[in-house]
């Protein structure tokens, strides 16, 4: 998208500059060619391709039913902190402002809110979904490698919005449950 944009930008400014620098050459351009070709045909082709590509990319982020249902965790937002629950792992207490997920596999995050609209966003994992009171939103994310990823609230939610951060810790899948339980005891 970036290089495509650069090319289109160069095209438009190029024609604009030509009109002033070399009016003789510019006047030989057919205006029908410019208006229909540049205004109608070119964007139609580019946009169709782009929209179809984006739809396929988007599929991967949407929690569509799969043969093997991914792990589910819950993210509950309130002014101004995040509570993460792990209903799939028995007997683990909720964690505050720190989400533990396994790496290398998709995880469904069920996002809810206690008061106002917040938004769950971990920039390096991509995808962003609002936490809306009274609604349940699900985003499907995948951390390719174990590690620490930082997350923020991305929808203005009052005075504490700036400091409403959290971290995501991705564990190797085979150690996930044991490390989660261990964490639970040390907390």
């Amino acid at each position, binding site marked *: 998208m970036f290089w495509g944009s650069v090319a289109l930008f160069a095209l*438009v400014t190029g024609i604009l500059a030509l009109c002033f620098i070399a009016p003789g050459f510019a*006047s030989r351009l057919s205006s029908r060619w410019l208006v229909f070709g*540049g205004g109608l045909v070119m964007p139609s082709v580019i946009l169709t391709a782009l*929209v179809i590509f984006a739809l396929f990319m988007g599929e991967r982020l949407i929690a569509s039913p799969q043969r093997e249902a991914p792990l589910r965790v819950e993210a509950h937002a309130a002014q101004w902190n995040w509570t993460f629950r792990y209903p799939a792992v028995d007997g683990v207490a909720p964690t505050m402002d720190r989400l533990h997920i396994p790496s290398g596999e998709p995880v469904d995050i069920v996002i809810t809110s206690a008061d106002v609209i917040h938004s769950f*966003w971990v920039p390096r994992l991509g995808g962003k*979904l609002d936490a809306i009171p009274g609604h349940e939103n699900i985003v499907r994310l995948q951390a390719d490698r174990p590690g620490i990823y930082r997350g923020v609230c991305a929808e203005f939610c009052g005075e504490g919005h700036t400091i409403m951060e959290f971290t995501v810790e991705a564990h190797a899948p085979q150690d996930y449950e044991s490390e989660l339980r261990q964490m639970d005891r040390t907390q």
Partner: protein
Amino acid sequence: MYTPLSSSAHTPGINADVWLLGITFVEISAMSAAVETLVSILKMRAPGMSLDKMPIFAWYLLVVAAMMLLGFPPMILGSILLELERAFDLPFFDPTRGGDSLLWQHLFWLFGHPEVYIIFLPAAGAISTVLPVFARHRLIGYRGIVVSAIAVGFLSFGLWVHHMFAVGIPHLALAFFSAASALVAIPTAVQIFAWLATLAKGRPRMDIPMLYLSGFFLIFVMGGLTGVMLAMVPFDWQAHDTHFVVAHLHYVLVGGFVFPMLAAAYYWLPHMTGRLSVRGLSVPAFWLLLIGFNMTFSLMHLTGLKGMPRRVSTYPGGVGWDWLNLLSSVGGFVLTMGFALFVLDVVLHIKFGKPFRRNPWKAASLEWATPTPPPSYAFASLPHISERADLVDPETLGPRLAAGDGYLGLARNNWMESLGVDMTTGKPDQVIILPQPSYLPLLTALATGGFVLCLLFKLYWVSLVPLALVLALFMVWTRTSGLKHDTDLLPIGRNQSAPPHVQAAQAPSYLAMVFALVGNGTLYVSLLFGTLFLWLVAPNWPPRELIETGLAVPALAVTASLLAAGLARRAVRALRDSRSPVPALLGATIAHLTALGATIWLVSTALPDPTSHAYAATSFVVLAYCALHNALGLIFAVFGLWRWHDGFLSAKRTLDLRIGSRLHDYTGLASLAGVGLVLIMPKLVAMTEGLAP
């Protein structure tokens, strides 16, 4: 700010009420401007100017005014509902009582996206007018541009959801709105390439307005390209609510509005002042603005992609945002210096600019045919237009019009007159007799402001005083318009004649009523759909209590409202046949009173407490809307009787009754739809009760 953060629980105090009521007040005035613009463009063009001869700028403003008429009502409704929630605890957006914050987002963006194009299109109109002057070539692709502007108008109503990609909405809706968002780039591209083609075919010369227009091209095209990126849902999920969006929207708005408007200011200021620009400052101001703007906002693309969210008061150091933000801040100062230089330039221009005779840019549009600066009457006589109105020669036309060689180059009865024309062909069909200069409009506006202020300070009973004052002032205002005797056709010059507007089939005020009702209807339809939206989507349904009423009272309310509409039509017919309209109007008055009583009974006794659940709250507002219109109907019916009594009405002069009749028709339909919906709601609730999880 979204609900529920902006509801009284999370934002107590008067501050939020100030902007809510302020926005409602301003938008209602914008609606009036939209009606005024639509009617002026459609009915008050120069004679002979058929639609296809309109200057391109008029086409753009026609589309913009129509968009305002349909785009602002959802926002007005949204702010009224939120204010009702804040002031009276009606839970439209409170999820614990069956409301939904998403309703606010839908209403807001249903306004908010067309609004972006409402900002851009007038600027595009200015570009289409100014650019050909400096290209020294007529605008290429006039028809294509008209079609594009209309297409943008239509499409802009189909993409509000692209501001809400991250709220969790159905899959197919995402695909639809993503495609629609990409689609709107096409008519915009057509306009840009038509402008480029005009420049390519002409012999362009660089002057101050053209310099600012090239700034528009540079900035706006970049904003458009990032816009296409954001229309792609997966990209948007990442960039939404980051500084990337901040950069995008500034590129679109500053590129698409500020730079064209600066060009327009340099182009039309001489028209207003009669002086030429002082050149020394305009060029450095341009470069400061261009460099400062790009330095501030182009870097924000990067800050955003590096994950910096919007609306934060501070950020942690060491994540790669520091130097980008520092440079953006420096750019901000450069930009400010550019604007300061521009303001200084305008002041110097007004003080020291060199006076000129006529048409300094060698333009070919009508406005340069007036004297400059223009006198209060603009044209001494009206031209006859036989070719496209932006391809005329002001040098020869101006002196002819000033000498009175056109329509209405005469004075009679001390009237202020203008011509009304057929909407499509532009043939003159009436003489519009304008009201004399008066302070009444100002006083009415002040009284309206007083009403809003009373609401702001929660003086609800006191607010009835300014409200009554508004009504009284409107009534006094009507004394200055209308004729008490039938008139023969009035000569208008060029051997033609036309009836006064009160005797014409389609007076501007009649058309204004029709447009006002279209805007009003949009608000009402948004309200009805909002009611159904909450029923289908909001959490915590069904409500515990439903309305308890038989069929009798609702049927009475609806029948009486429809009867009033029928009687009002009968009054018009009676008047046309030279009979007295009094019996029919009296009947309509009684019918409205009956409907008003029945509706108020429904609200006060049959409906559960409106603060208990969003169901009761929406039903309450729907019924209150119907009652308000019955009250308006009552006023219009009595007004009709008054006008008859004072001799303003005759078989030829039916205008006042015809205007009223449209309102009565509307009230009948509104009552049918509103009371009907309130009756059906309990059945709908019962239907989904079984499905509720």
